[in-house]
């Protein structure tokens, strides 16, 4: 099985989508069961992959290599290392959870679940591709189902949100396309292999418009990835898309898609262009800190719970950037803390933000609104400026418990997973950029502000009569959230299972980036 496991992981959902399309119209519940079966099976394969993963090497494992287009040297090349392994697991886990969260989709379920499975396949493909062309194809393939999932099944502004998301991301990816072609044609031999390019790309010496070609490639890639993360000022698509998307799609957007940006930097920009990566590190740290503060400050200002969670993602991704920037830290320990923290934060934030969005979905499904405070221009004048909920803890204790857990994980409470990874990013950042990191630490305070305030207005205080009829979480909802909660607590007290997968690869990456360039050694 080992030889084909990655192909299975990627194409299992495609098969699932095909099965769904073969089932005739109008079989109400069949589609979701098929969706659950295929994503569940994919999750099992991912668990097996994790169990069989060799944590002692930074080399790619379970690799698969087949010639795809001979004339252009494009290969079907896949593999996982300590960087992609957590992402593969996260993708499989969140896809399965999201299908469960989509249980009540009634509008065109056949289309919904088949598109969802295609999205799953695209994401999985991005994380296991070792050929740039293959990577790019998966990167783009993912956009199509996403566009429809937001545009058809989303909230009131879904169409605008969907096209904005699509245009933004396509803008980023066409620049990436040019960078990809430049890397191909300017390296000798011409190759798309992300492994060969590690040694070949740094040798490129072309000047264009007075700039070093490598810097232009770096920036083209950076903009492509930055839009996905999203890094300030490319973040404006995010609140809209996250808020308008249906719950399960928000989970995927925040849980997996954002990670593709940072994953792309770590997989492509860092190893291929180490000189640029180190020279850019300070700017990256600045951008990271801006993200932390800007995202948190915006979250504080939100009246809509889902928007608040969306902005919190921007803030949390800032920690990843800060951790990544720490690769230039003068102390090896600092670089290790930063880089390991960054990847761990990618995984942890995936779980935490997924939990948050799922919980927002739970309350929204019942109450059909999610205002902390009704906005000033709310249609019902009597409600303007009023508290949206209140005292929910009394009759929704399980829900309150889950929310408390995820909020505390989000604000970085020790013993929950978010604390470990954020702390590691900050430690790493501190060894490299002291003042910046101290400013970034303020973000934790701001995060605490809005999470605690949200908890207070929703769950504490006088019970709001209007919402007395809300039922607590159903068994299905508990079932889909429990695994995420377990992971959040487990990695909070014992992060080793995750870190041992990540660390060897990060050591290799740090050495690759900070080692003196190959030209200088000659």
């Amino acid at each position, binding site marked *: 099985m080992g030889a084909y496991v990655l192909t299975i992981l990627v194409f299992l959902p495609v098969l699932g989508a095909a099965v769904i399309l073969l089932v005739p119209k109008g079989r109400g519940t069949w589609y979701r069961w098929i969706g659950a079966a295929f994503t569940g099976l994919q999750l099992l394969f991912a668990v097996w992959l994790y169990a069989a993963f060799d944590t002692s090497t930074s080399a790619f494992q379970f690799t698969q290599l087949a010639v795809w287009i001979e004339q252009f040297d494009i290969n079907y090349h896949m593999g996982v290392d300590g960087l992609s392994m957590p992402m593969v697991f996260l993708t499989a886990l969140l896809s399965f959870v999201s299908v469960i969260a989509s249980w009540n989709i009634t509008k065109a379920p056949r289309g919904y679940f088949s598109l969802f499975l295609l999205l799953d396949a695209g994401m999985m493909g991005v994380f296991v591709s070792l050929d740039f062309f293959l990577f*790019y194809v998966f990167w*783009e393939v993912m956009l199509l189902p996403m566009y429809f999932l937001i545009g058809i099944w989303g909230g009131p502004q879904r169409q605008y949100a969907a096209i904005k998301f699509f245009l933004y991301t396509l803008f980023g990816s*066409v620049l990436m396309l040019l960078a990809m072609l430049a890397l191909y044609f300017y390296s000798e031999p011409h190759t798309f292999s992300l492994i060969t390019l590690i040694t070949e790309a740094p040798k490129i010496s072309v000047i264009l418009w007075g700039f070093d070609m490598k810097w232009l490639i770096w920036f083209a890639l950076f903009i492509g990835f930055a839009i996905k993360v999203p890094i300030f000022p490319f973040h404006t698509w995010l609140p809209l898309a996250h808020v308008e998307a249906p719950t399960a799609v928000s989970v995927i957007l925040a849980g997996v898609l954002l990670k593709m940006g940072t994953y792309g930097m770590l997989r492509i920009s860092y190893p291929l262009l180490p000189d640029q990566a180190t020279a850019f590190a300070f700017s990256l740290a600045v951008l990271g800190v801006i993200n932390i503060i800007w995202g948190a400050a915006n979250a504080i200002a939100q009246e809509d719970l889902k928007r608040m969670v969306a902005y919190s993602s921007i803030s949390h991704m800032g920690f990843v950037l800060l951790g990544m920037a720490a690769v230039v830290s003068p102390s090896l320990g600092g670089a290790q803390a930063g880089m390991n923290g960054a990847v761990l934060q990618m995984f942890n934030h995936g779980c935490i933000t997924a939990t948050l969005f799922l919980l927002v979905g739970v309350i929204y499904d019942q109450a059909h609104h999610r205002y902390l405070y009704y906005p000033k221009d709310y249609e019902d004048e009597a409600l303007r400026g009023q508290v949206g909920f209140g005292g929910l803890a009394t009759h929704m204790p399980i829900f309150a418990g889950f929310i408390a857990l995820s909020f505390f994980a989000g604000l970085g409470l020790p013993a929950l997973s978010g604390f470990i990874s954020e702390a590691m990013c900050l430690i790493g950042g501190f060894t490299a950029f002291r003042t910046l990191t101290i400013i970034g630490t303020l973000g934790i305070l701001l995060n605490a502000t809005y999470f605690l305030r949200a908890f207070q207005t929703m769950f504490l205080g006088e019970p709001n009569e209007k919402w007395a009829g809300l039922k607590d979480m159903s068994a299905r909802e508990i079932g889909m959230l429990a695994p995420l909660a377990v992971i959040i607590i487990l990695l909070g007290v014992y992060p080793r299972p995750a870190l041992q997968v990540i660390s060897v690869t990060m050591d290799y990456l740090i050495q690759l980036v900070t080692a003196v360039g190959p030209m200088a050694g000659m």
Partner: protein
Amino acid sequence: MTNLQSTAYFLPELLITGFAVLIVLIDVFIGRAGRNRVIWTLSLTAVVVVGVALYVQPVPGEALFYGSLAADPFSRFFKWIFLLATAIIYFISPYTRQLKDTAQNEYYLFLLLVMLGMFLMASALDLIIIYLSIEIVSIGSFVLAGFLKSDRLSNESSLKYVIYGAFSSGIMLYGLTLLFGLAGSTSIFDVQEALANLPQGSELMALVALVMILVGFGYKISMVPFHFWTPDVYQGAPTTITAYLSVAPKAAGFALLLRVLGITFGADPSIPWEEWVPLTGLPFGVLIAVFAALTMTIGNVLAIQQDSVKRMLAYSSVAHAGYMLMAVTLMNAQALQAIMFYLAVYLFMNLGAFVVAIVVHNQFGYDDIDDWKGLGFKIPLIAVPMGIFLFGLTGLPPTAGFIGKVYLFAVLIAAKQFWWLAVVGVLNSVVSLYYYMRILKVMFMDGEPVDKTVSDHPAMTATVLALMVPVLLLGVYWSPLLELIRSSLRIFSPGL
């Protein structure tokens, strides 16, 4: 090669002519009832027979008819494209409601004659043939565009087409006479020699001739600023003809443009195409690059504002000419390969999109984008392929359109020239996404399906699905097409 010897290699063209004569005769002898059916069958037979003749025909070592036509693999590739496009248009014509109450004998006849003209365009080695073949295609197209005699838009489209056509071919003819004046011969190889030996400082002469010829060629491929006829003609002509014009004559225009400009304005015909360079002192690349940038930008920007799907696709076809022109700037073997690949892929995508437009038109008689509302869930077998065609036109994987665009961009990047043009090109792709997605948005996201029963002829659905297959397949595995194109990259040259 003498005339008599040449006819052996001229069989496809002779067969087309023969069938055209046959159609005219049958028209006279057969009664009105069932005539359309007979002529339709005969026309499809003609395409098949010509295809067989083209397939078995050997490649001659020399040019035909004393050096005026080439029957090289390059022209053969384009002839396959013309045949395929004609076959598809023939096939769907009886199922097109617009054409229901017309006498279709002339329709099929003129399509066949246009195809003959395009065959000649792809082979032309002589200034006279260039002009004649373009005129055969144009005159046939004028008639076809105005085929709906009682439709005001169709009449307008035909008239506009004639005026623009006459104007631009007049200018082109002037350019051709300039070349003849320089060379004293109508062979493009002689013209090349004359241009290459122009005394120092008279490059302006070559430049003026080039620009004038570009007017004529640009008109055929809808290059800005010679595109003004496109939206009106595309909107007014019967939709089958619009589909045809957007694919086949455009491909023919590119065949002519690549061969004639490549040879005439190349520095030396003995240099292999891999290292093509323009005549010294001629700003060939820059000139084409500016046209390419203008063409794709203006095409895309104007497409955004259209509410008629046919007009939108018309502007989009202008934009696609711009993408292909990007590669013309370098004119090397890689560029030819990229353009040929793109044309082949574009054939499927664009015809597919137009066939869907015909299906919708058949059902509702609409051409306004808002009337496509809700069709996505009503006719998924048509709407989902439409999505794939539009993704292909945008250039998104996993469709063949993506691969085509990658090759076009790769030409510029591999040559390490015209980087700005590549940037303009990719940004245009983003712009085009907006209006292509608008069609999908209307179909899938805007409200409930219109309250009408939708059922289309299975032949149309089959055509749509059949066109979708290559768009997807070539997006995942395109080596065979690439091989075919590489083996077709043998362009006739007397020295070789």
